[in-house]
Protein backbone atom coordinates (compact mmCIF):
# COMPACT_ATOMS: atom_id res chain seq x y z
CA UNK A 1 0.00 0.00 0.00
CA UNK A 2 3.07 2.23 -0.08
CA UNK A 3 2.08 3.44 -3.54
CA UNK A 4 -1.31 4.52 -2.31
CA UNK A 5 0.16 6.41 0.60
CA UNK A 6 2.34 8.41 -1.77
CA UNK A 7 -0.41 9.28 -4.18
CA UNK A 8 -3.65 10.71 -3.02
CA UNK A 9 -5.92 7.75 -2.31
CA UNK A 10 -8.95 9.11 -4.11
CA UNK A 11 -6.92 10.20 -7.14
CA UNK A 12 -5.61 6.67 -7.37
CA UNK A 13 -9.11 5.29 -7.07
CA UNK A 14 -10.35 7.49 -9.90
CA UNK A 15 -7.48 6.28 -12.05
CA UNK A 16 -8.29 2.63 -11.30
CA UNK A 17 -12.00 3.24 -11.94
CA UNK A 18 -11.06 4.75 -15.31
CA UNK A 19 -9.00 1.66 -16.04
CA UNK A 20 -12.08 -0.43 -15.21
CA UNK A 21 -14.08 1.48 -17.81
CA UNK A 22 -11.29 1.18 -20.39
CA UNK A 23 -11.03 -2.55 -19.69
CA UNK A 24 -14.80 -2.90 -19.97
CA UNK A 25 -14.79 -1.21 -23.37
CA UNK A 26 -11.57 -2.73 -24.68
CA UNK A 27 -13.43 -4.26 -27.59
CA UNK A 28 -13.07 -0.88 -29.29
CA UNK A 29 -9.56 -2.01 -30.18
CA UNK A 30 -11.00 -4.86 -32.25
CA UNK A 31 -10.24 -7.58 -29.72
CA UNK A 32 -13.03 -10.13 -29.49
CA UNK A 33 -14.40 -11.94 -26.47
CA UNK A 34 -11.73 -13.34 -24.14
CA UNK A 35 -11.87 -16.07 -21.48
CA UNK A 36 -11.78 -13.55 -18.64
CA UNK A 37 -14.65 -13.23 -16.20
CA UNK A 38 -15.20 -9.57 -15.31
CA UNK A 39 -14.81 -8.74 -11.59
CA UNK A 40 -17.96 -6.63 -11.54
CA UNK A 41 -21.30 -6.19 -13.23
CA UNK A 42 -20.53 -5.61 -16.90
CA UNK A 43 -22.77 -7.09 -19.59
CA UNK A 44 -21.01 -9.50 -21.98
CA UNK A 45 -23.54 -8.53 -24.63
CA UNK A 46 -22.08 -4.99 -24.63
CA UNK A 47 -20.72 -4.53 -28.16
CA UNK A 48 -17.37 -3.41 -26.77
CA UNK A 49 -17.06 -5.97 -23.96
CA UNK A 50 -14.13 -8.39 -24.06
CA UNK A 51 -15.02 -10.15 -20.80
CA UNK A 52 -17.78 -12.43 -19.59
CA UNK A 53 -20.34 -11.17 -17.08
CA UNK A 54 -20.17 -13.40 -13.98
CA UNK A 55 -23.90 -13.16 -13.31
CA UNK A 56 -24.85 -13.86 -16.93
CA UNK A 57 -22.39 -16.76 -17.06
CA UNK A 58 -23.57 -18.48 -13.89
CA UNK A 59 -27.17 -18.32 -15.10
CA UNK A 60 -26.16 -20.02 -18.34
CA UNK A 61 -24.15 -22.65 -16.48
CA UNK A 62 -27.13 -23.39 -14.25
CA UNK A 63 -29.31 -23.77 -17.36
CA UNK A 64 -26.73 -26.18 -18.80
CA UNK A 65 -26.40 -28.05 -15.49
CA UNK A 66 -22.63 -27.47 -15.51
CA UNK A 67 -20.66 -27.53 -12.24
CA UNK A 68 -19.00 -24.11 -12.55
CA UNK A 69 -15.37 -24.75 -11.56
CA UNK A 70 -13.88 -21.97 -13.67
CA UNK A 71 -16.50 -19.50 -12.46
CA UNK A 72 -15.98 -20.50 -8.81
CA UNK A 73 -12.25 -20.15 -9.12
CA UNK A 74 -12.49 -16.70 -10.66
CA UNK A 75 -15.00 -15.42 -8.10
CA UNK A 76 -12.96 -16.85 -5.20
CA UNK A 77 -9.77 -15.27 -6.56
CA UNK A 78 -11.41 -11.87 -7.04
CA UNK A 79 -13.08 -12.13 -3.64
CA UNK A 80 -9.89 -13.07 -1.85
CA UNK A 81 -8.01 -10.20 -3.46
CA UNK A 82 -10.42 -7.34 -2.83
CA UNK A 83 -13.90 -8.51 -1.84
CA UNK A 84 -16.29 -5.67 -2.57
CA UNK A 85 -13.29 -3.48 -3.29
CA UNK A 86 -14.05 -4.17 -6.96
CA UNK A 87 -17.37 -2.33 -6.49
CA UNK A 88 -15.58 0.74 -5.19
CA UNK A 89 -12.52 0.62 -7.38
CA UNK A 90 -13.18 -1.13 -10.68
CA UNK A 91 -16.79 -1.94 -11.68
CA UNK A 92 -17.99 0.47 -14.42
CA UNK A 93 -21.58 0.28 -13.22
CA UNK A 94 -20.32 0.99 -9.72
CA UNK A 95 -18.48 4.00 -11.12
CA UNK A 96 -21.76 5.25 -12.62
CA UNK A 97 -23.29 4.85 -9.16
CA UNK A 98 -20.35 6.85 -7.82
CA UNK A 99 -20.81 9.67 -10.30
CA UNK A 100 -24.44 10.04 -9.24
CA UNK A 101 -23.72 9.78 -5.51
CA UNK A 102 -25.08 13.18 -4.54
CA UNK A 103 -26.96 12.16 -1.42
CA UNK A 104 -24.90 10.10 1.00
CA UNK A 105 -27.79 9.19 3.24
CA UNK A 106 -28.13 6.51 5.86
CA UNK A 107 -31.57 5.09 5.20
CA UNK A 108 -33.19 1.74 4.53
CA UNK A 109 -30.19 -0.11 5.94
CA UNK A 110 -31.99 -3.39 6.36
CA UNK A 111 -32.97 -3.25 2.68
CA UNK A 112 -29.31 -3.88 1.84
CA UNK A 113 -30.08 -7.56 2.37
CA UNK A 114 -32.15 -7.20 -0.80
CA UNK A 115 -29.08 -7.89 -2.91
CA UNK A 116 -28.90 -11.42 -1.47
CA UNK A 117 -32.55 -11.90 -2.39
CA UNK A 118 -31.75 -10.70 -5.92
CA UNK A 119 -28.79 -13.10 -6.13
CA UNK A 120 -30.80 -16.06 -4.83
CA UNK A 121 -33.74 -15.15 -7.08
CA UNK A 122 -31.44 -14.92 -10.10
CA UNK A 123 -30.00 -18.38 -9.50
CA UNK A 124 -33.32 -20.01 -8.64
CA UNK A 125 -35.03 -18.45 -11.66
CA UNK A 126 -32.26 -19.71 -13.94
CA UNK A 127 -32.75 -23.21 -12.55
CA UNK A 128 -36.55 -23.19 -12.48
CA UNK A 129 -37.15 -21.43 -15.80
CA UNK A 130 -34.00 -22.57 -17.64
CA UNK A 131 -33.58 -19.00 -18.74
CA UNK A 132 -31.43 -15.96 -18.02
CA UNK A 133 -34.22 -13.96 -16.45
CA UNK A 134 -32.03 -11.47 -14.59
CA UNK A 135 -30.33 -10.37 -17.83
CA UNK A 136 -33.71 -9.27 -19.15
CA UNK A 137 -34.15 -6.72 -16.38
CA UNK A 138 -30.52 -5.94 -15.57
CA UNK A 139 -29.94 -2.15 -15.74
CA UNK A 140 -26.31 -2.70 -16.74
CA UNK A 141 -27.53 -4.68 -19.77
CA UNK A 142 -30.04 -1.91 -20.48
CA UNK A 143 -27.28 0.65 -20.65
CA UNK A 144 -24.51 -1.42 -22.20
CA UNK A 145 -26.46 -3.69 -24.60
CA UNK A 146 -30.05 -2.62 -25.27
CA UNK A 147 -29.27 0.99 -26.16
CA UNK A 148 -26.18 0.27 -28.32
CA UNK A 149 -27.94 -2.53 -30.22
CA UNK A 150 -30.90 -0.23 -30.88
CA UNK A 151 -28.55 2.09 -32.75
CA UNK A 152 -26.84 -0.87 -34.46
CA UNK A 153 -30.16 -2.05 -35.92
CA UNK A 154 -30.19 -5.34 -34.02
CA UNK A 155 -32.72 -4.26 -31.36
CA UNK A 156 -36.03 -2.49 -31.81
CA UNK A 157 -38.28 -0.55 -29.46
CA UNK A 158 -40.39 -3.44 -28.23
CA UNK A 159 -41.67 -4.69 -24.89
CA UNK A 160 -38.35 -6.19 -23.66
CA UNK A 161 -36.60 -2.94 -24.62
CA UNK A 162 -39.14 -0.87 -22.67
CA UNK A 163 -38.74 -3.19 -19.65
CA UNK A 164 -34.98 -2.60 -19.86
CA UNK A 165 -35.47 1.16 -20.06
CA UNK A 166 -37.87 1.12 -17.10
CA UNK A 167 -35.31 -0.86 -15.08
CA UNK A 168 -32.54 1.55 -16.03
CA UNK A 169 -34.73 4.59 -15.30
CA UNK A 170 -35.73 3.38 -11.83
CA UNK A 171 -32.11 2.51 -11.03
CA UNK A 172 -30.82 5.91 -12.18
CA UNK A 173 -33.45 7.76 -10.14
CA UNK A 174 -32.55 5.55 -7.18
CA UNK A 175 -28.86 6.38 -7.64
CA UNK A 176 -29.59 10.10 -7.62
CA UNK A 177 -31.79 9.91 -4.52
CA UNK A 178 -29.61 7.46 -2.57
CA UNK A 179 -25.85 7.20 -3.10
CA UNK A 180 -24.76 3.81 -4.50
CA UNK A 181 -28.42 2.75 -4.63
CA UNK A 182 -27.78 -0.22 -6.93
CA UNK A 183 -24.63 -1.38 -5.15
CA UNK A 184 -26.25 -1.01 -1.75
CA UNK A 185 -29.57 -2.77 -2.23
CA UNK A 186 -29.76 -4.76 -5.44
CA UNK A 187 -26.48 -5.80 -7.09
CA UNK A 188 -26.13 -9.63 -7.18
CA UNK A 189 -22.43 -9.34 -7.97
CA UNK A 190 -21.99 -7.11 -4.92
CA UNK A 191 -23.76 -9.79 -2.90
CA UNK A 192 -21.33 -12.42 -4.16
CA UNK A 193 -18.21 -10.36 -3.47
CA UNK A 194 -19.51 -9.31 -0.05
CA UNK A 195 -19.15 -12.95 1.09
CA UNK A 196 -15.39 -12.37 0.92
CA UNK A 197 -15.28 -8.93 2.54
CA UNK A 198 -13.84 -10.11 5.85
CA UNK A 199 -11.10 -12.29 4.38
CA UNK A 200 -9.94 -10.17 1.45
CA UNK A 201 -6.44 -8.71 1.22
CA UNK A 202 -7.82 -5.23 0.50
CA UNK A 203 -9.41 -4.16 3.73
CA UNK A 204 -10.21 -1.24 5.95
CA UNK A 205 -8.09 -1.26 9.08
CA UNK A 206 -9.39 0.45 12.19
CA UNK A 207 -7.34 1.66 15.18
CA UNK A 208 -9.76 2.00 18.02
CA UNK A 209 -7.30 3.87 20.21
CA UNK A 210 -6.98 6.64 17.64
CA UNK A 211 -10.73 7.07 17.05
CA UNK A 212 -12.35 10.07 18.74
CA UNK A 213 -15.85 9.06 17.66
CA UNK A 214 -16.33 12.33 15.77
CA UNK A 215 -18.40 10.59 13.09
CA UNK A 216 -16.79 12.41 10.13
CA UNK A 217 -16.29 9.11 8.37
CA UNK A 218 -20.00 8.32 8.56
CA UNK A 219 -20.89 11.53 6.72
CA UNK A 220 -18.60 10.56 3.82
CA UNK A 221 -19.56 6.90 3.39
CA UNK A 222 -21.48 6.42 0.11
CA UNK A 223 -22.88 3.11 1.38
CA UNK A 224 -24.53 4.70 4.41
CA UNK A 225 -22.28 2.93 6.90
CA UNK A 226 -20.64 4.16 10.08
CA UNK A 227 -17.12 2.94 9.35
CA UNK A 228 -15.77 3.53 12.86
CA UNK A 229 -18.42 1.17 14.18
CA UNK A 230 -18.68 -1.37 11.35
CA UNK A 231 -15.50 -1.21 9.28
CA UNK A 232 -15.81 -4.79 8.09
CA UNK A 233 -19.45 -4.61 7.11
CA UNK A 234 -20.58 -6.69 4.13
CA UNK A 235 -21.67 -3.49 2.43
CA UNK A 236 -18.25 -1.80 2.64
CA UNK A 237 -16.94 -1.21 -0.87
CA UNK A 238 -13.51 -0.16 0.42
CA UNK A 239 -13.56 3.10 -1.49
CA UNK A 240 -11.48 4.70 1.28
CA UNK A 241 -13.53 7.91 1.48
CA UNK A 242 -13.79 7.39 5.22
CA UNK A 243 -10.04 6.87 5.55
CA UNK A 244 -9.40 10.03 3.53
CA UNK A 245 -11.75 12.02 5.73
CA UNK A 246 -10.64 10.62 9.10
CA UNK A 247 -8.84 13.48 10.96
CA UNK A 248 -6.88 11.15 13.27
CA UNK A 249 -5.92 8.39 10.83
CA UNK A 250 -7.88 5.78 12.77
CA UNK A 251 -9.17 4.31 9.54
CA UNK A 252 -6.75 3.15 6.89
CA UNK A 253 -7.21 1.23 3.65
CA UNK A 254 -4.60 -1.51 3.39
CA UNK A 255 -3.61 -4.13 0.87
CA UNK A 256 -1.77 -6.79 2.81
CA UNK A 257 -1.35 -10.54 3.06
CA UNK A 258 -0.84 -10.28 6.80
CA UNK A 259 -3.86 -10.90 8.98
CA UNK A 260 -3.73 -8.50 11.92
CA UNK A 261 -6.45 -8.39 14.49
CA UNK A 262 -8.00 -4.93 14.86
Amino acid sequence: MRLLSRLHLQTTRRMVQSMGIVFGLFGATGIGMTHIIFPGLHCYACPLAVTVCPIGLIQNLIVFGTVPYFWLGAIAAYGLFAGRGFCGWFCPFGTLNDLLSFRKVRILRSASLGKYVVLAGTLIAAWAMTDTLFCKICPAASLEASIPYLFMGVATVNRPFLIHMASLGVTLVGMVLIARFWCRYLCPMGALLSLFNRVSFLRLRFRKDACTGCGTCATKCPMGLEPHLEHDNHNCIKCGLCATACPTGALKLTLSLRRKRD
Partner: protein
Amino acid sequence: MTNRPQRRLPQKAAMMPLLLLVPILLSFAVGAQDPILEVGTFPDPLLLPPGGEATARILLVNPTATEADDAEVFLLSIPDGVDVTSVPSILPKIDPFSDGVLDLLFAADELAEGTYEASAELVYTYCDDDSCFEVVEPLTFVMEVRAGAVPIAVESFGAAGRGAGMLPLILAAAVLAAALVVFAFVRKMVVVVAAVGLIAVGALAYGVLTSQHEQAQGIGAVLCTSCVGIEEASHGEPALSSETRSELAAFAGPEPIQVLVFYAVWCHSCPYAEAMVEAFAAEAEWISYRFIDVETEPELAAQYNVIRSNRTVVPATVLPATGTVLFGVEHLETRLLDALRSLP
Protein backbone atom coordinates in the same frame (compact mmCIF):
# COMPACT_ATOMS: atom_id res chain seq x y z
CA MET B 1 -21.48 11.85 18.34
CA THR B 2 -20.99 9.22 21.01
CA ASN B 3 -19.48 5.84 20.43
CA ARG B 4 -22.01 3.08 20.21
CA PRO B 5 -21.12 -0.51 21.06
CA GLN B 6 -19.33 -2.28 18.20
CA ARG B 7 -21.75 -4.02 15.87
CA ARG B 8 -19.64 -6.66 14.25
CA LEU B 9 -20.69 -9.45 12.04
CA PRO B 10 -20.15 -12.75 13.79
CA GLN B 11 -16.68 -14.14 13.17
CA LYS B 12 -18.38 -17.09 11.54
CA ALA B 13 -19.45 -14.87 8.66
CA ALA B 14 -15.85 -14.88 7.47
CA MET B 15 -16.23 -18.56 6.74
CA MET B 16 -18.84 -17.97 4.06
CA PRO B 17 -16.42 -18.13 1.11
CA LEU B 18 -15.59 -21.69 2.13
CA LEU B 19 -19.03 -22.70 0.99
CA LEU B 20 -17.73 -22.46 -2.53
CA LEU B 21 -15.64 -25.55 -1.81
CA VAL B 22 -18.75 -27.68 -1.58
CA PRO B 23 -19.63 -28.09 -5.27
CA ILE B 24 -16.06 -29.18 -5.99
CA LEU B 25 -16.11 -31.81 -3.26
CA LEU B 26 -19.53 -32.89 -4.34
CA SER B 27 -18.38 -33.61 -7.85
CA PHE B 28 -16.10 -36.33 -6.52
CA ALA B 29 -19.09 -38.01 -4.93
CA VAL B 30 -20.91 -38.33 -8.25
CA GLY B 31 -20.79 -41.94 -9.36
CA ALA B 32 -18.70 -42.40 -12.49
CA GLN B 33 -21.02 -44.96 -14.04
CA ASP B 34 -24.02 -42.65 -13.86
CA PRO B 35 -25.60 -41.50 -17.11
CA ILE B 36 -23.93 -38.35 -18.36
CA LEU B 37 -26.30 -37.46 -21.20
CA GLU B 38 -29.66 -35.78 -20.83
CA VAL B 39 -32.00 -37.47 -23.29
CA GLY B 40 -35.14 -35.94 -24.79
CA THR B 41 -37.43 -37.33 -27.50
CA PHE B 42 -39.62 -35.17 -29.73
CA PRO B 43 -42.40 -34.92 -30.69
CA ASP B 44 -44.61 -36.71 -28.22
CA PRO B 45 -46.84 -38.22 -29.50
CA LEU B 46 -45.48 -38.90 -32.95
CA LEU B 47 -48.20 -37.92 -35.44
CA LEU B 48 -48.36 -39.66 -38.80
CA PRO B 49 -51.01 -40.51 -41.38
CA PRO B 50 -51.73 -44.12 -42.43
CA GLY B 51 -49.13 -45.12 -44.98
CA GLY B 52 -47.09 -42.02 -44.19
CA GLU B 53 -43.80 -41.20 -42.54
CA ALA B 54 -42.70 -39.11 -39.56
CA THR B 55 -39.43 -38.44 -37.83
CA ALA B 56 -38.79 -38.70 -34.10
CA ARG B 57 -35.79 -36.75 -32.84
CA ILE B 58 -33.65 -37.88 -29.94
CA LEU B 59 -31.78 -34.91 -28.49
CA LEU B 60 -28.69 -35.85 -26.51
CA VAL B 61 -27.34 -33.04 -24.32
CA ASN B 62 -23.93 -33.49 -22.75
CA PRO B 63 -23.65 -31.02 -19.84
CA THR B 64 -20.47 -32.65 -18.50
CA ALA B 65 -16.77 -32.31 -19.21
CA THR B 66 -16.62 -35.93 -20.41
CA GLU B 67 -16.95 -36.99 -24.03
CA ALA B 68 -19.72 -39.53 -24.77
CA ASP B 69 -19.08 -42.03 -27.57
CA ASP B 70 -20.93 -44.36 -29.92
CA ALA B 71 -24.52 -43.39 -29.16
CA GLU B 72 -26.82 -45.85 -30.90
CA VAL B 73 -30.51 -46.79 -30.72
CA PHE B 74 -31.58 -50.45 -30.57
CA LEU B 75 -35.24 -51.20 -31.23
CA LEU B 76 -36.82 -53.60 -28.75
CA SER B 77 -40.42 -53.75 -29.92
CA ILE B 78 -42.22 -52.02 -32.75
CA PRO B 79 -45.75 -52.55 -34.04
CA ASP B 80 -46.12 -54.82 -37.06
CA GLY B 81 -46.16 -52.93 -40.31
CA VAL B 82 -43.78 -50.20 -39.12
CA ASP B 83 -40.33 -49.70 -40.52
CA VAL B 84 -37.79 -47.62 -38.53
CA THR B 85 -34.54 -46.17 -39.81
CA SER B 86 -31.99 -44.32 -37.65
CA VAL B 87 -30.20 -41.31 -39.15
CA PRO B 88 -27.31 -41.47 -38.54
CA SER B 89 -27.17 -45.10 -37.52
CA ILE B 90 -24.60 -44.26 -34.86
CA LEU B 91 -23.31 -41.02 -33.36
CA PRO B 92 -19.52 -41.49 -32.98
CA LYS B 93 -19.09 -38.86 -30.26
CA ILE B 94 -20.78 -36.05 -28.34
CA ASP B 95 -18.28 -33.48 -27.15
CA PRO B 96 -18.33 -32.01 -23.62
CA PHE B 97 -20.86 -29.19 -23.22
CA SER B 98 -22.44 -29.87 -26.60
CA ASP B 99 -25.41 -31.67 -28.10
CA GLY B 100 -26.00 -34.51 -30.51
CA VAL B 101 -29.06 -35.58 -32.45
CA LEU B 102 -30.32 -38.97 -33.65
CA ASP B 103 -33.38 -39.03 -35.90
CA LEU B 104 -35.60 -42.09 -36.21
CA LEU B 105 -37.65 -42.24 -39.41
CA PHE B 106 -40.92 -44.11 -38.74
CA ALA B 107 -42.72 -45.40 -41.88
CA ALA B 108 -46.22 -46.70 -41.12
CA ASP B 109 -46.75 -48.63 -44.35
CA GLU B 110 -49.41 -51.01 -43.13
CA LEU B 111 -50.82 -49.45 -40.02
CA ALA B 112 -54.48 -48.65 -39.37
CA GLU B 113 -55.57 -45.59 -37.40
CA GLY B 114 -54.93 -45.80 -33.69
CA THR B 115 -52.30 -45.29 -31.00
CA TYR B 116 -49.25 -47.55 -30.89
CA GLU B 117 -46.17 -47.78 -28.76
CA ALA B 118 -42.61 -48.62 -29.71
CA SER B 119 -39.79 -49.22 -27.26
CA ALA B 120 -36.08 -48.95 -27.77
CA GLU B 121 -32.79 -48.54 -25.91
CA LEU B 122 -30.24 -45.81 -26.26
CA VAL B 123 -26.73 -47.15 -25.67
CA TYR B 124 -23.60 -45.06 -25.37
CA THR B 125 -20.20 -45.26 -23.72
CA TYR B 126 -17.85 -42.88 -21.93
CA CYS B 127 -14.49 -43.16 -20.25
CA ASP B 128 -13.30 -41.71 -16.97
CA ASP B 129 -9.53 -42.00 -16.52
CA ASP B 130 -8.74 -45.67 -17.21
CA SER B 131 -12.29 -46.95 -16.77
CA CYS B 132 -14.91 -47.01 -19.51
CA PHE B 133 -18.63 -47.46 -18.98
CA GLU B 134 -21.63 -48.39 -21.08
CA VAL B 135 -24.92 -46.65 -20.33
CA VAL B 136 -28.29 -48.00 -21.43
CA GLU B 137 -31.31 -45.70 -21.36
CA PRO B 138 -34.83 -46.95 -22.18
CA LEU B 139 -36.82 -44.99 -24.76
CA THR B 140 -40.54 -45.10 -25.51
CA PHE B 141 -42.28 -43.65 -28.56
CA VAL B 142 -46.04 -43.19 -28.76
CA MET B 143 -47.28 -43.17 -32.36
CA GLU B 144 -50.64 -41.66 -33.16
CA VAL B 145 -51.79 -42.77 -36.61
CA ARG B 146 -54.75 -40.91 -38.00
CA ALA B 147 -55.96 -39.72 -41.37
CA GLY B 148 -54.91 -36.20 -42.23
CA ALA B 149 -52.23 -36.02 -39.54
CA VAL B 150 -49.37 -33.72 -40.51
CA PRO B 151 -45.99 -34.89 -39.19
CA ILE B 152 -44.23 -32.25 -37.09
CA ALA B 153 -40.89 -31.06 -38.42
CA VAL B 154 -38.26 -32.07 -35.88
CA GLU B 155 -35.55 -29.65 -37.00
CA SER B 156 -37.18 -27.08 -34.73
CA PHE B 157 -36.52 -29.21 -31.66
CA GLY B 158 -33.21 -28.31 -30.18
CA ALA B 159 -32.44 -26.32 -27.07
CA ALA B 160 -36.14 -26.10 -26.12
CA GLY B 161 -35.87 -29.59 -24.72
CA ARG B 162 -32.94 -28.70 -22.52
CA GLY B 163 -33.42 -28.70 -18.78
CA ALA B 164 -31.31 -27.79 -15.82
CA GLY B 165 -31.63 -31.19 -14.17
CA MET B 166 -31.37 -31.78 -10.46
CA LEU B 167 -27.68 -30.98 -10.03
CA PRO B 168 -28.10 -27.29 -9.04
CA LEU B 169 -30.72 -28.23 -6.46
CA ILE B 170 -28.45 -30.89 -4.99
CA LEU B 171 -25.64 -28.34 -4.90
CA ALA B 172 -27.79 -25.83 -3.05
CA ALA B 173 -28.78 -28.41 -0.43
CA ALA B 174 -25.16 -29.50 -0.04
CA VAL B 175 -24.05 -25.88 0.41
CA LEU B 176 -26.50 -25.44 3.26
CA ALA B 177 -25.35 -28.64 4.93
CA ALA B 178 -21.68 -27.73 4.53
CA ALA B 179 -22.35 -24.24 5.93
CA LEU B 180 -23.43 -25.77 9.21
CA VAL B 181 -20.33 -27.97 9.36
CA VAL B 182 -17.93 -25.11 8.52
CA PHE B 183 -19.52 -22.68 10.94
CA ALA B 184 -19.41 -25.27 13.70
CA PHE B 185 -15.77 -26.35 13.39
CA VAL B 186 -13.59 -23.75 11.67
CA ARG B 187 -12.47 -20.86 13.88
CA LYS B 188 -9.13 -19.55 12.63
CA MET B 189 -9.18 -16.80 10.01
CA VAL B 190 -5.89 -17.95 8.48
CA VAL B 191 -7.43 -21.34 7.75
CA VAL B 192 -10.30 -19.67 5.94
CA VAL B 193 -7.96 -17.51 3.86
CA ALA B 194 -5.82 -20.50 2.94
CA ALA B 195 -8.89 -22.55 2.03
CA VAL B 196 -10.33 -19.79 -0.16
CA GLY B 197 -6.96 -19.46 -1.89
CA LEU B 198 -6.84 -23.19 -2.53
CA ILE B 199 -10.39 -23.14 -3.86
CA ALA B 200 -9.53 -20.30 -6.21
CA VAL B 201 -6.40 -21.93 -7.62
CA GLY B 202 -7.81 -25.46 -7.72
CA ALA B 203 -11.14 -24.56 -9.27
CA LEU B 204 -9.55 -22.27 -11.85
CA ALA B 205 -7.01 -24.93 -12.82
CA TYR B 206 -9.62 -27.67 -13.07
CA GLY B 207 -11.95 -25.34 -14.99
CA VAL B 208 -9.21 -24.63 -17.53
CA LEU B 209 -8.30 -28.33 -17.79
CA THR B 210 -11.92 -29.15 -18.61
CA SER B 211 -12.15 -26.29 -21.13
CA GLN B 212 -14.70 -24.36 -19.11
CA HIS B 213 -12.88 -21.14 -19.92
CA GLU B 214 -13.63 -21.79 -23.59
CA GLN B 215 -17.25 -22.50 -22.74
CA ALA B 216 -17.39 -19.13 -20.96
CA GLN B 217 -15.84 -17.38 -23.93
CA GLY B 218 -18.31 -19.11 -26.27
CA ILE B 219 -21.27 -17.91 -24.22
CA GLY B 220 -19.92 -14.37 -24.22
CA ALA B 221 -19.09 -14.34 -27.91
CA VAL B 222 -22.60 -15.24 -29.07
CA LEU B 223 -25.44 -12.77 -28.63
CA CYS B 224 -28.75 -14.60 -28.31
CA THR B 225 -31.37 -11.91 -28.88
CA SER B 226 -33.94 -13.35 -26.51
CA CYS B 227 -31.44 -14.19 -23.77
CA VAL B 228 -30.56 -10.57 -22.88
CA GLY B 229 -33.97 -9.06 -23.54
CA ILE B 230 -33.51 -7.64 -27.02
CA GLU B 231 -36.71 -9.44 -27.99
CA GLU B 232 -39.08 -11.92 -26.43
CA ALA B 233 -38.39 -15.60 -26.88
CA SER B 234 -40.71 -17.39 -29.29
CA HIS B 235 -41.41 -21.08 -28.97
CA GLY B 236 -43.49 -23.63 -30.78
CA GLU B 237 -44.51 -24.09 -34.37
CA PRO B 238 -45.11 -20.95 -36.42
CA ALA B 239 -48.25 -20.97 -38.56
CA LEU B 240 -48.01 -18.98 -41.79
CA SER B 241 -50.89 -16.62 -42.54
CA SER B 242 -53.06 -17.31 -45.57
CA GLU B 243 -51.76 -14.07 -47.15
CA THR B 244 -48.18 -15.30 -46.88
CA ARG B 245 -49.06 -18.70 -48.32
CA SER B 246 -50.93 -17.23 -51.25
CA GLU B 247 -48.16 -14.75 -51.96
CA LEU B 248 -45.53 -17.50 -51.90
CA ALA B 249 -47.67 -19.52 -54.30
CA ALA B 250 -47.98 -16.50 -56.59
CA PHE B 251 -44.24 -16.08 -57.12
CA ALA B 252 -44.07 -16.97 -60.79
CA GLY B 253 -41.19 -19.24 -61.80
CA PRO B 254 -38.61 -17.95 -59.34
CA GLU B 255 -35.04 -19.18 -59.35
CA PRO B 256 -34.21 -21.65 -56.58
CA ILE B 257 -32.79 -19.83 -53.57
CA GLN B 258 -31.25 -20.92 -50.31
CA VAL B 259 -32.05 -19.53 -46.87
CA LEU B 260 -29.55 -19.96 -44.05
CA VAL B 261 -30.46 -19.93 -40.37
CA PHE B 262 -27.59 -19.37 -37.94
CA TYR B 263 -28.29 -20.78 -34.50
CA ALA B 264 -26.71 -21.76 -31.18
CA VAL B 265 -27.88 -24.89 -29.41
CA TRP B 266 -28.70 -22.97 -26.24
CA CYS B 267 -30.59 -20.12 -27.94
CA HIS B 268 -34.27 -20.10 -26.99
CA SER B 269 -35.70 -18.55 -30.15
CA CYS B 270 -33.54 -20.36 -32.69
CA PRO B 271 -35.87 -23.39 -33.09
CA TYR B 272 -38.66 -20.96 -33.92
CA ALA B 273 -36.59 -19.27 -36.63
CA GLU B 274 -35.71 -22.67 -38.08
CA ALA B 275 -39.34 -23.78 -38.03
CA MET B 276 -40.38 -20.54 -39.75
CA VAL B 277 -37.96 -21.11 -42.61
CA GLU B 278 -39.15 -24.72 -42.89
CA ALA B 279 -42.72 -23.49 -43.08
CA PHE B 280 -41.74 -21.15 -45.95
CA ALA B 281 -39.93 -23.98 -47.71
CA ALA B 282 -42.96 -26.24 -47.31
CA GLU B 283 -45.04 -23.67 -49.19
CA ALA B 284 -42.48 -22.87 -51.87
CA GLU B 285 -40.46 -25.64 -53.48
CA TRP B 286 -37.93 -23.13 -54.80
CA ILE B 287 -36.75 -22.37 -51.25
CA SER B 288 -34.11 -24.65 -49.79
CA TYR B 289 -32.56 -24.10 -46.41
CA ARG B 290 -29.66 -24.95 -44.17
CA PHE B 291 -29.21 -24.56 -40.43
CA ILE B 292 -25.74 -23.56 -39.25
CA ASP B 293 -24.45 -23.88 -35.69
CA VAL B 294 -22.38 -20.72 -35.14
CA GLU B 295 -20.27 -22.44 -32.49
CA THR B 296 -19.12 -25.20 -34.83
CA GLU B 297 -18.95 -23.16 -38.03
CA PRO B 298 -17.93 -19.64 -36.96
CA GLU B 299 -16.23 -19.00 -40.30
CA LEU B 300 -19.62 -19.18 -42.06
CA ALA B 301 -21.05 -16.70 -39.54
CA ALA B 302 -18.28 -14.30 -40.50
CA GLN B 303 -18.71 -14.98 -44.23
CA TYR B 304 -22.45 -14.23 -44.13
CA ASN B 305 -22.16 -11.11 -41.98
CA VAL B 306 -24.05 -12.19 -38.88
CA ILE B 307 -21.34 -10.79 -36.62
CA ARG B 308 -21.89 -7.38 -35.10
CA SER B 309 -19.05 -5.79 -33.16
CA ASN B 310 -17.39 -9.15 -32.52
CA ARG B 311 -20.67 -10.75 -31.35
CA THR B 312 -22.28 -13.49 -33.43
CA VAL B 313 -25.98 -12.67 -33.27
CA VAL B 314 -28.46 -15.56 -33.20
CA PRO B 315 -30.92 -16.40 -34.52
CA ALA B 316 -29.99 -14.83 -37.84
CA THR B 317 -31.85 -15.67 -41.05
CA VAL B 318 -29.79 -14.94 -44.14
CA LEU B 319 -30.61 -14.77 -47.84
CA PRO B 320 -27.21 -15.22 -49.50
CA ALA B 321 -28.65 -14.16 -52.87
CA THR B 322 -29.16 -10.59 -51.67
CA GLY B 323 -27.00 -10.56 -48.57
CA THR B 324 -30.05 -9.79 -46.44
CA VAL B 325 -29.58 -10.59 -42.73
CA LEU B 326 -32.62 -10.78 -40.45
CA PHE B 327 -31.80 -10.88 -36.74
CA GLY B 328 -34.17 -12.37 -34.18
CA VAL B 329 -37.65 -13.74 -34.66
CA GLU B 330 -39.85 -10.72 -34.05
CA HIS B 331 -42.17 -10.30 -37.06
CA LEU B 332 -39.94 -12.79 -38.86
CA GLU B 333 -42.72 -13.95 -41.19
CA THR B 334 -43.28 -10.41 -42.49
CA ARG B 335 -39.59 -9.58 -42.68
CA LEU B 336 -38.72 -12.79 -44.49
CA LEU B 337 -41.54 -12.26 -46.95
CA ASP B 338 -40.32 -8.68 -47.57
CA ALA B 339 -36.81 -10.01 -48.16
CA LEU B 340 -38.11 -12.56 -50.67
CA ARG B 341 -40.05 -9.83 -52.47
CA SER B 342 -36.84 -7.93 -53.03
CA LEU B 343 -35.17 -10.86 -54.78
CA PRO B 344 -34.03 -9.93 -58.29
